[in-house]
């Protein structure tokens, strides 16, 4: 049993990161109907900027704050420079634009920073905590708590604030939202900055465990995308469930079957879920209007 618990704990840690990336996908998808393949680069930027700001002598919390704010800026720039001018383009074009953006950001990071692997110290030490025969790193608790906090704040934002409701209204029907006086361009900007900030925060939280380098974004984007799809695109609860499920699944496959094929498990399950439930686990059934 301690073995199972151990795999579960590490699965939840990784899953919390996937959930945050999936949440980023969800927020942008709801606001603009775009799946942003550059989402993983936000996580990379969060980690890398913190590393370099910290190395330049800043205290860690300040460095992390700067990383989150700077990445949010990158998100806004992405929206203004690449997504808004392409409004109404077909899905294939949008996929290529955001993949182009992801390659561009990776190329820029390689120039601005370097190609080395980096980390910074864990927030509260590296002494593992024992739980029922299994152990967990204090940093894992930070990751899990961070993810829960983000989801809780977002829930408050969407249900208790006027701006949050404006975002939901825009996601539901853009034209109708405009008609009742919602500034949908502002909602887009807000969504991209929130999504980028959440990605960056995930990067800050997880870097002490997984390390970071300029090219970690792509794999995270694919997993996050898969997690979002698993839960049902456009549903924040689905993002949380999909992310955690994917993380646990990977950890179990790595532990019990083969660590080489842990990534395969994720995609096999996604294919199976999509075949059986084309809308994902929590997605709504939609009917096309003719």
């Amino acid at each position: 049993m301690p073995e199972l618990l151990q795999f579960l704990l590490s699965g939840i840690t990784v899953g919390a990161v996937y959930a945050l990336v999936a949440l980023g996908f969800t927020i942008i998808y709801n606001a603009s109907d775009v799946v942003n393949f550059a989402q993983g680069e936000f996580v990379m930027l969060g980690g890398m900027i913190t590393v370099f700001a910290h190395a330049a002598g800043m205290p860690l919390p300040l460095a992390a704050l700067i990383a989150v704010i700077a990445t949010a800026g990158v998100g806004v720039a992405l929206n203004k420079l690449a997504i808004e001018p392409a409004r109404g383009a077909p899905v294939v074009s949008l996929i290529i634009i955001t993949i182009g953006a992801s390659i561009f950001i990776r190329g820029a990071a390689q120039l601005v920073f370097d190609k080395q692997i980096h980390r910074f110290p864990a927030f509260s030490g590296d002494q593992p905590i024992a739980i029922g025969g299994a152990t967990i790193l204090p940093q894992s608790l930070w990751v899990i708590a961070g993810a829960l906090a983000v989801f809780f704040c977002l829930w408050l934002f969407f249900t208790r604030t006027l701006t949050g409701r404006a975002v939901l209204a825009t996601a539901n029907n853009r034209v109708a939202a405009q008609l009742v006086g919602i500034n949908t361009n502002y909602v887009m900007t807000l969504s991209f900055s929130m999504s980028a900030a959440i990605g960056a925060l995930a990067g800050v939280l997880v870097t002490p465990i997984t390390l970071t380098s300029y090219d970690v974004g792509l794999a995270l984007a694919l997993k996050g995308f898969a997690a979002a799809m698993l839960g049902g695109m456009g549903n924040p609860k689905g993002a949380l469930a999909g992310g955690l499920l994917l993380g646990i699944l990977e950890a179990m496959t790595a532990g019990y079957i083969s660590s080489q094929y842990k990534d395969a498990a994720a995609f096999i399950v996604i294919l199976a879920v999509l075949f059986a439930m084309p809308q994902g686990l929590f997605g709504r059934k939609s009917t096309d209007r003719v």
Partner: protein
Amino acid sequence: MRLSSKATTLLILAAVIAIAPVFFPSSYYFRVGSLIFVNGLAVTGLVILIGYAGQISLGHAGFAGIGAYACALAPVHLGLHPALAAVLGAFLSAAIAFLVGRPILRLKGYYLAVASLGFGILVSMVLSNEAQLTGGPDGMAVPELGLRAALKAVGIDLSNTAFWYAFSGLVLVIGAWLALNLHHSPTGRALRALHGSEIAARTVGVDVAHYKLVAFVISAVYASVSGSLLALQNKFITPDVGGFMHSIEMVTMTVLGGAGSVLGAILGAAILTTLPQVLTVFQEYEQLMLGLVMMLVMIFMREGLLPSITRRIRGRGE
């Protein structure tokens, strides 16, 4: 008019392939040329899937990987001639595309994108993890095709690069010819009808699921043959040929040049194959430039380079 547009496309393609070597200062250019043709072939298949049928796949490199590794593995383990191995790879790709295609193609848009992406990743994962069979990430050697030696025996002596330039150029022209024929066939019309509107196509009696599958299988065969050609030409193959980035490259080439047109997509393949060769001088900036080109073309020329440019020229003429 329609017929002449097909003839024009083939004529332009054949003429460019035949005349370009006159301007080649070194054998390196033959090599780049044959890489363009290999990519052009895969991209022509995607024109059928993306341009005609309007479906997306982010996993077609998986089929290229199958074609490539068939040429590496079948001669060693089954004792097949490399050319037969390529045929076997094409059949295998078609069979897998048939099996995977039916459930995958029920999905639309982003869901189809993630499902095909997942398929591609599974294939590339098998290629890099089954090291005892495929040599893992280090790759493996591919036997000689032997056609050049046969040509030499009948008095046609070509250098290695020139041979592959001519051979892959020929395969590309054949592939383009088949794709253009398909465009004007009943199948092609059915594909374009379901691209326009699946519901409308179904209403007039098009078996949507069947035709989507046809397009998927055909494009998989194109990708597989392209992978085989690459393997035979390089005489060495790594799992990268089946990787996610290769899938993305293929789709980008198609859409960049113009997914609706065979010639456009091949132009896209030419540009994206040449770009890294030109940019090796600025190796540090390669990714930056590639990402920038992808974004700019898709934002400012949504139909792709060739259709946008021809429209502009025609617009001026009128």
